[in-house]
């Protein structure tokens, strides 16, 4: 059975307001990925277009986008797993190639969150929970993660300072990433004194809405070796889901879907957490990164806060995490996020990460979560 590799990656800058259409936004990321691997649109055999549709005016965006990218008459499919849409696209592209249906597949993720007014965006956020039993009480994304944060603090003694350390780290790397939205380092004091959004989470504990697109081009082993000298192989894929309703969650100290996805991915790759050289985790909120360390096995449950405080997840630590600014530093254009995480890991494993390069990076991991711990994808890559 043929293996599958990432051969090309591309990403737009993530910005507050892109000022272009979703087609134009996707074109930029797609063009960069094509140039990365010297392919033409006609060589892409199929595409997967990933986003959260409630932010779009265009109905069935895949059709509009592939026309603009020159990807007709090849087949295309729209993929939605909220914030995990991008890596779900990679998982499906992997399956299309593994099955032998296609040899080269492009995964394009995008979101133009500025398409909506903040009132419209907040209305949609309210419906991101179970609309029958959760939304009528006014649940938001920050409130959902705040419930986890409070439980983590109560159970393990995790502190607001430890959560703030995650944002401090992110901002340090975001300023070295020209595609990141936040280009300013923030201090621990600034995070701790920022206004409360949903206690204990404050303004700087939260990632921000953004516009952006990303593209990942995957190929079968045979094609990959012809296309590039530096294929990055997908060696592990795990994926899981969790009840949407808050009342039916069994844990508030970690994300069950991440634990299960990680278990599957490590097993498939035949590696252990300590073998991971560089990771991208879904830090939509600071507490989410701390839980990710634990759920991925980088430390024991309850030790995540200490891990960042001790500097173990910085560029020269034992587990370098989000050495591109993460969602907190880059901004979080929902459908584009997973592809951006994959792009960072691919660049790290190729040795192309410049000032953000982690030394001796051979195995990389992506952890991408949809909703309030609703969908979990973990991907493992090897150079």
């Amino acid at each position, binding site marked *: 059975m043929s293996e599958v590799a990432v051969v090309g990656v591309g990403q737009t800058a993530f910005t507050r307001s892109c000022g272009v259409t979703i087609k134009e936004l996707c074109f930029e990321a797609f063009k960069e990925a094509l140039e990365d691997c010297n392919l033409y649109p006609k060589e892409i055999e199929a595409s997967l277009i990933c986003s959260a549709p409630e932010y779009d005016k265009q109905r069935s965006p895949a059709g509009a986008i592939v026309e603009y990218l020159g990807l007709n008459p090849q087949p295309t499919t729209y993929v939605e797993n909220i914030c995990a849409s991008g890596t779900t696209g990679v998982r499906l592209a992997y399956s299309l190639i593994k099955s032998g249906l296609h040899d080269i597949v492009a995964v394009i993720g995008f979101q133009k969150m500025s398409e909506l007014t903040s009132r419209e965006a907040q209305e949609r956020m*309210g419906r991101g929970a179970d*609309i029958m039993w959760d939304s009528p*009480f006014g649940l*938001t994304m920050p409130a959902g993660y705040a419930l986890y944060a409070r439980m983590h603090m109560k159970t393990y003694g995790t502190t607001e300072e430890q959560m703030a350390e995650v944002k401090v780290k992110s901002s340090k790397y975001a300023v070295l990433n020209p595609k990141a939205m936040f280009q300013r380092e923030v201090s621990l004091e600034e995070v701790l004194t920022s206004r409360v*959004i*949903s206690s204990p989470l404050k303004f700087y504990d939260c990632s921000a809405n953004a516009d952006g697109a990303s593209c990942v081009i995957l190929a079968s082993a045979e094609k990959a070796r012809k296309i590039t000298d530096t294929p990055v192989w997908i060696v592990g894929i795990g994926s899981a889901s969790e009840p949407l309703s808050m009342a*039916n*969650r069994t844990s508030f100290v970690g994300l069950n879907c991440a634990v299960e996805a990680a278990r599957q991915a490590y097993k498939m790759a035949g590696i252990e957490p300590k073998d991971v050289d560089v990771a991208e985790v879904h830090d939509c909120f600071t507490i989410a990164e701390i839980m990710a360390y634990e759920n991925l096995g980088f430390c024991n449950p309850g030790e995540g806060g200490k891990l960042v405080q001790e500097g173990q997840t910085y560029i020269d630590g034992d587990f370098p995490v989000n050495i591109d600014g993460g969602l907190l530093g880059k901004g979080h254009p929902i459908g584009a996020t997973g592809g951006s995480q994959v792009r960072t890991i691919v660049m790290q494993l190729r040795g192309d990460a410049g000032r953000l390069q982690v030394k001796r990076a051979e195995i990389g991991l992506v952890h991408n979560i949809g909703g309030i711990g609703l969908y979990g994808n973990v991907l493992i890559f090897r150079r």
Partner: protein
Amino acid sequence: MGFEKFGKISYIRETKVAPFVDYLEQGKVMATRCRSCGKMYFPPRMDCEQCMTSDNMEWKEIVNEWKILTYTVSEFAPTGFEDDVPYILAIAESAEGLRVFTRLSKDVKEEQLQSDMKFKLAPVRLPDGKITYELQPLEEG
């Protein structure tokens, strides 16, 4: 029809568990229990995921004694809820092991949540005539 009366903003009108709202109007918070396999559901449902039988549920009053597992004070609300901030959202567990996600009564102060205080789930009539439930302190005795 019937469920549109539930909650400050209702997104659902039709459901098999619409009688939940009628019970709420009578001051009762009800769960469902599968007559085939005995599984209890709260929030209620009419289809059993454990034994896959449908419409073989009985309504059952809950043991109304809850403890807070985790909470957040929300200073930021979705569209339509802006006037309510700040409000406390919580996950609570009942004496019989059921869980609920809901709001706390405005009378509860955050400091009170540090203790092992017990709560009851109580129906609340909203100004526009709709109905919801919230956690209120359970009077001792």
